[in-house]
């Protein structure tokens, strides 16, 4: 579901406040549900062009996709919930050893 996104630097792994999210383009089938979910949770709009995850056609091979996060991604993990193809993986922050509520 390629849409035109603004040019920005992109990466396939984002770490933010100890949350980690990574994307495996080899598993991406281009459904675009992640873009839809992201644009809603971050921008309160159903509009993939505003998403912080970017799925584009890969011109190297028919049916492959180039899947990356834009620089605005804060690794919230919402898109991983909406990925049914095991392409986006969300790693919850590990608990600090010895951390308490005190």
């Amino acid at each position: 579901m390629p849409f035109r996104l603004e040019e920005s630097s992109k990466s396939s792994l984002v770490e933010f406040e100890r949350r980690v999210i990574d994307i495996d383009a080899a598993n991406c089938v281009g459904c675009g549900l992640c873009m839809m979910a992201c644009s809603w949770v971050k921008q309160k709009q159903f509009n993939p062009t505003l998403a912080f995850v970017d799925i584009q056609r890969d011109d190297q091979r028919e049916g492959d996709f180039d899947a990356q996060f834009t620089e605005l991604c804060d690794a919230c993990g919402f898109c991983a919930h909406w990925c049914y193809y095991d392409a986006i993986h969300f790693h919850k922050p590990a608990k600090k050893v010895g951390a308490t509520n005190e």
Partner: protein
Amino acid sequence: MSNPQRRKQYGISSWHGEYRVDEADEQSSGMVGFGDILEVDLTAGTHRRLPVTEAMARDYIGGQGIGSYLLSQYIPNVVDPLGPDNVLILSVGQLDASVVPSASRSTFLSRSPNPGTYLGMSNGGGMVQLRNAGFDQLVMLGKAEEPVYIKITDEEVELVPAHHLWGRDTYETVDDIWSELGDHYEVACIGPAGENLVRHAAIIGDKHVAWGRTGLGAVMGSKNLKAIVVSGTQQIQIAEPVRMMRLCQRTNEEITGDTESIRVWRDGGTWKWIADVEREVPRAPSEVFDLDMYDEKLDHRPIACPGCPVGCKHALKVREGLKHAGLEFIVGCTSGTMCGPFGAGLGVVPVEEVAKCAEVVQRLGMDSSSTAGLISLLLELHDARLISSEEIGIDAHWGDEESIVKLMNMIARREGIGGRLADGSVPFAESVGPEAVNFLVDWKGMARAVTSSGGQLRSEMSTANLAWAVNFRGHMDRHRYPFKGGTADQPEGNIETLVKLADHLGIPADDVPDAAAPKSESVPRAMRYIQDYNTVAYCLGFCDRPVILNALAIERMAEMYRLATGIQVQADDLLRAARRIWNLEKVWVTVQGQTRQDDYPSERYFIEESQHEKLGEVRTFPPVSREVYDQIMNDYYDAEGWHPGTGLPRIETLEELGLGWLVEEHGDVLQPA
């Protein structure tokens, strides 16, 4: 009552009174997320934007339903399918381009140019960005003077000269447009077949989406319209987004929770589902029936339509060391485009050669089922010595990929005998002689699609089989969920499934089919409910893969519609609207000339027995009894509220559905003297 003179100018104010929009400039506040109607006049090179009114949405749901309504308004009388007065409409499903699972389907509508077919309607997954650009419906009128393509973005609608694309195949056309404009554009285009007005030409999108059957590529060709390209960046409005997100996530989890089905769809798409799960196939020697061979020879991976959690389309690459090594392309339906027509239908044995045939037919822009049907008709006539090799012009025989590819090129370019085949199977058989007509296996002038056992009408009727017979556009996948038994999705037989799914489909308690009654009685009575349910699904843009529809009870669809649009309708209202759409289409095809006789298949079904293989056991089915078929049709028409004798809708039925205006306009056709 409309004024025919004004209607002739396609004036919106001449539409049926209730939908007058001159006083309602904007959508009423009670409805959310409806795009506009974009009317492009190719003759004048102009366009305008017309709103969808709330009354229209209430009566025709959205998407294909409103598209059918527009078709009836733009084409009120008999029209020449390839003349400038024919109108091509692209309707995008009402929930498309949102988060709703699998909602990504769009429908092209027109008067079909295929001889014997009336309603031109074809459904594919794509062009959803039309909604992001602000439009739900695209209406194309007239004929451009020179080849053009329509370019639609948020800001503008443009007719772009397309001389440089004319003559290019569908893959080249898409590549050219992507390198001109960027590959975020969705492209629906025609190939050489559409340009040459081949009567079964397809519209191909993004190099794999096929709006295949009923020959709408030729309608585009007749309008000098090479392609429609669209890119939108606007948001899709949802009335209650939070609840919608929750409901969609739950639905997605239900769909993907059926892990066994999901595995099958992603491993091999529609073909795997038929060959591995249904395990009931027409007999043919092709390797495509051996799924290990399929995996061994093809490097394949799933691709999804926008918003779909299933992913049944496939990107294929022929492995090294084989003929056509390195050939790569995407096929939307591995069954309908590839393995069915060329493996099962024409008996091409090696998988890589079957793949080559599918690639060529997509490049040329033809409907694969009709193309394979025509070639098998030709080969049968050759076997029966009714047509000679000299007349064919090449040495063609069953299972020979090279001659099949040559024949496909001849058809698409109307060379030699291809020119005769390109005019459709019925005229071709008639041109060969009266004996040749007995070889047809057509439904409404369209060759039987060898996609599954549902392709064979047998004495053992199911709703899947009857759906082939009674839908308005001939033999194709439409309005047939739930499938007959024997699948991973539907473990029981057809009637048992129907009884179990009565609530799911919205069948009223007192009309639930009796499992003990003969199928020839219960099936036609249940058919109208299945059509209504499926029509709702099509209007909303849902795909008809059983794994998806299994999660979409009619109540669930109604809830999604409410959450998306804010229009407070119940499931019953949607089903009633679907029935209205079905009857509107029925009147429209009747006006175009379709009669009860068109609901009958070719004579051959009544004469010849058919063989199927299930789990290695060959079963022979007797020919269909004409008496039984007559009775089934009578029962079906009666259940629909139509006259059994003529198959024409009863006036009371139309009036009850609020279609009394059709009676006023077409009384002469509906009440023949």
